[in-house]
């Protein structure tokens, strides 16, 4: 039935496809099924309730006015921040200077740090009584702040942690991109005496655009589902004011023990990011071809 080539292709992807079927497709189907049923973890009646869970998720004020805006704000600011800092560092590392290898190693440190551990470090640094930030602030005459129990400072700290964690990722990929650019246009610009800014604006940036776009898409999809650092830094608090989408679904399913509603929330979020992902993929395709 299949030719030799088709059989070869099939064998190449068979193990991967089988694993995905068992551990991604099957759970998603089960989750979708649970989202239509009354499925509390302590009392799994599994009676069909139709779209009730979806209705209660998308009309939940906490979801609409806190979780969704938080998630999008977080996604945009975290990607933008890491992109700007990462690009700056990549440009810096792209010119040779003594000690460049050492600097490069130091800048890649956050890449190795587990998000949970990063969150623990930051929690300790911003501890309201003994954290070094407050100690320094008080030493120079300001009042220490209870950083992690105020909404916007807590949100800012989560954001800062995320940017710290993911900047090296941008630096690494953008540096690789920078080093593979052709040299001739830059030599021509140097001969013409073009200013640094104009070289960056009209040469480096346009030529680097495909790499930047791919980085941004990958990172944006990941930022949408951030869980570890929020869980460890604030647990979604104060109140529920720093909850992001993944935490919202987790809390519904495992703390409120309502798997049906938790699954519905997870699917709503999944659909949102799927649409975003497809739109972004189109965008990448168009930019790559242009």
């Amino acid at each position, binding site marked *: 039935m299949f030719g030799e080539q088709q059989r070869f292709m099939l064998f190449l992807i068979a193990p991967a496809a089988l694993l995905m079927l068992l551990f991604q497709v099957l759970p998603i189907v089960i989750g979708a099924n649970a989202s239509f049923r009354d499925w509390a973890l302590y009392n799994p009646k599994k009676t069909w309730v139709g779209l009730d869970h979806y209705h209660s998720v998308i009309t939940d004020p906490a979801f609409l006015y806190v979780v969704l805006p938080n998630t999008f704000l977080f996604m945009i600011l975290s990607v933008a921040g890491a992109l700007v800092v990462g690009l700056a560092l990549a440009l810096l590392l*792209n010119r040779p200077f003594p000690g460049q290898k050492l600097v490069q190693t130091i800048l890649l440190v956050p890449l190795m*740090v587990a998000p949970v*551990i990063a969150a623990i470090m930051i929690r300790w640094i911003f501890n309201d009584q003994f954290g070094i930030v407050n100690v320094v602030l008080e030493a120079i005459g300001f009042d220490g702040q209870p950083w992690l129990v105020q909404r916007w400072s807590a949100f800012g700290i989560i954001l800062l942690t995320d940017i710290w964690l993911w900047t090296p990722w941008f630096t690494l990929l953008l540096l690789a991109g920078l080093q593979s650019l052709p040299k001739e246009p830059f030599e021509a610009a140097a001969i013409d005496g073009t200013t640094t800014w104009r070289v960056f604006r009209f040469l480096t940036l346009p030529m680097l655009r495909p790499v930047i776009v791919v980085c941004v898409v990958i990172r944006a999809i990941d930022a949408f589902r951030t869980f570890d650092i929020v869980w460890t830094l604030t647990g979604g608090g104060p109140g529920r004011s720093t909850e992001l989408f993944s935490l919202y679904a987790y809390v519904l399913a495992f703390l409120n023990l309502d798997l049906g509603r938790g699954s519905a929330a997870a699917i709503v979020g999944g659909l949102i990011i799927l649409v975003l992902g497809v739109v972004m993929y189109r965008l990448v395709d168009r930019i790559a071809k242009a």
Partner: protein
Amino acid sequence: MPMVTRPNFLPGLPNWSRKTFFALALAAICFAFAFPVLWLILTSLRPESGVYYVHRGTEFTLGNFAEVLGQERIVEAFINSAVISTLATVFSLLVTVSSGYMLSRFTGPGARLWFGTIYVFRCVPYISWVLPLYFVVQSWGIYDSYIGLLLPHIAVHICFFSWLMKGFFDGIDPSMEYAAMIDGCSRWGAFIRVAIPSALPAISALAVLCWLFTWNEFLFALILTGNRVPVITVVMAQFVTEMGLHWNLMAATAVMALLPAFLVALFGQKYVIRGLRI
């Protein structure tokens, strides 16, 4: 672009002051990036009595590490994390290298379908399939066991790594494989004896990344394990709530959890940077 003389930054200033400014800015950036880790290491070396005044005391001790290593659960968590990360790396490479090769070397509806599937599943948030995965592993009787954590860890990387692997193979000229096939090599022979050896730097890079990702992973372990298979990230997160006052012990555990990742990354940095450039 080392050969090109660049227009100078801050052209009005003399050369030495520009150099000093550059060095200071560089030092400040490095400090900002390394500070959280340095502070953690410093905290881990303070005795219980001095931990709240890390910036002041001069007493240092290795006692925290000894105390942490005396706790059976933490040692067990380290061993579990190491075993799972290593096994996940090996199996994940076995599975994704061939899938990435298929994506790179074939066009047509089959390859397009597989690429589309991978892209879509890459977008699905972990939480959407990890929540129900809890039931799947429970009904198969592998909840809270090695295999129950290992298999999802292999599955999670398939999409991203196949994608990266496709990029790597795209950068390798396939004509060598065609030549091998004309010389009588089978397709499998061309793949295993020609394509894989030339992709070795990229595969090493992937191995480093995979080991780090698995060692650092939290959400799966939180949902799919209980008390029998503690892993280090979950134990650390429990620490924050249960041992919230023992910052010295927490810091010591965190430093030990960072150490293997640092070693892997330090030796693997070369491969990662070279691998991502292909």
